């Protein structure tokens, strides 16, 4: 009886256990490079956004430009005849 159980474990159970665990390990290892790519992409995206504070400069310049355009518009309104 003990011999039969031992043989079953050795011939049937052991290969199945090894096969299943190998599959799990293979899939887990396959995730690692994908996570690394996502991490690199996120880092690159974060680095690209370092220029976002320049929007504040753009905002200020747009406001100043609009003010200048308004001043020119006021002058044109005086200089040009109405239709």
């Amino acid at each position, binding site marked *: *009886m*003990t*011999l*039969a*159980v*031992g*043989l079953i*474990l*050795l011939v049937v*159970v*052991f290969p199945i*256990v*090894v096969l299943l*665990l*190998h599959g*799990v*390990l293979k899939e*887990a*290892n396959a*995730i*690692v490079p994908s*996570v*690394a790519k*996502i*991490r690199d992409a*996120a*880092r690159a*995206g*974060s680095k690209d*956004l*370092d220029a*976002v504070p320049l*929007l*504040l400069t*753009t*905002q200020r310049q*747009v*406001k100043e*430009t*609009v003010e200048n*355009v*308004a001043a020119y*518009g006021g*002058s*044109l*309104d*005086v*200089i*040009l*005849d*109405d*239709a």
Partner: protein
Amino acid sequence: MGAVILIVAVVLIVLALVYYLVSVIVALQKIATGLDETITAVGEIIEKTAPVAPVVDDINANLDAAVSALEGLLVKKAGMADAVGLVDGLYPGAAKAGFRDFPDSATTKAPRISTVYTRGTLTLARLGREAPIAAASPNGPALRNAVAGSLAARGLYFGERPGRSPVIGTNAPVQYEASDADPSTV
């Protein structure tokens, strides 16, 4: 004999479990580390993009105000039809959308100004009374009334209008404004 085989089988299974499970644990640790770094980077992205929306909204609001003011000025100075034609000449297809603050501008039939004049000429024709196009057009009527449209400019000259633009500035031979002119009116 049977006990030995049983023990060997159990030991092999346990060893296989240990090897593969430890390997899986190592791989999961790498994944967890990578995800932690990813989450950190994503957090930075969220933090950096947080002020973008209000800043862009403010920029758009300023630009909208400028566009409305300039469109209003253009309509006031050029008239609705010419204004629509001029804008459509500069930006083909814009006449269909019309002006923002003038709902009837979308239905205004725009003159095909751009089929006759280039963009630069259009701009000069509308903004500068000294534009050559204001004087005459060899292919038909001028965009502006050659006489009435340049009355103000003609007022700058004492006699006949010269063939070139007048010399302006502090060293100009003819000063067109009195030295005590109110600068606030310029």
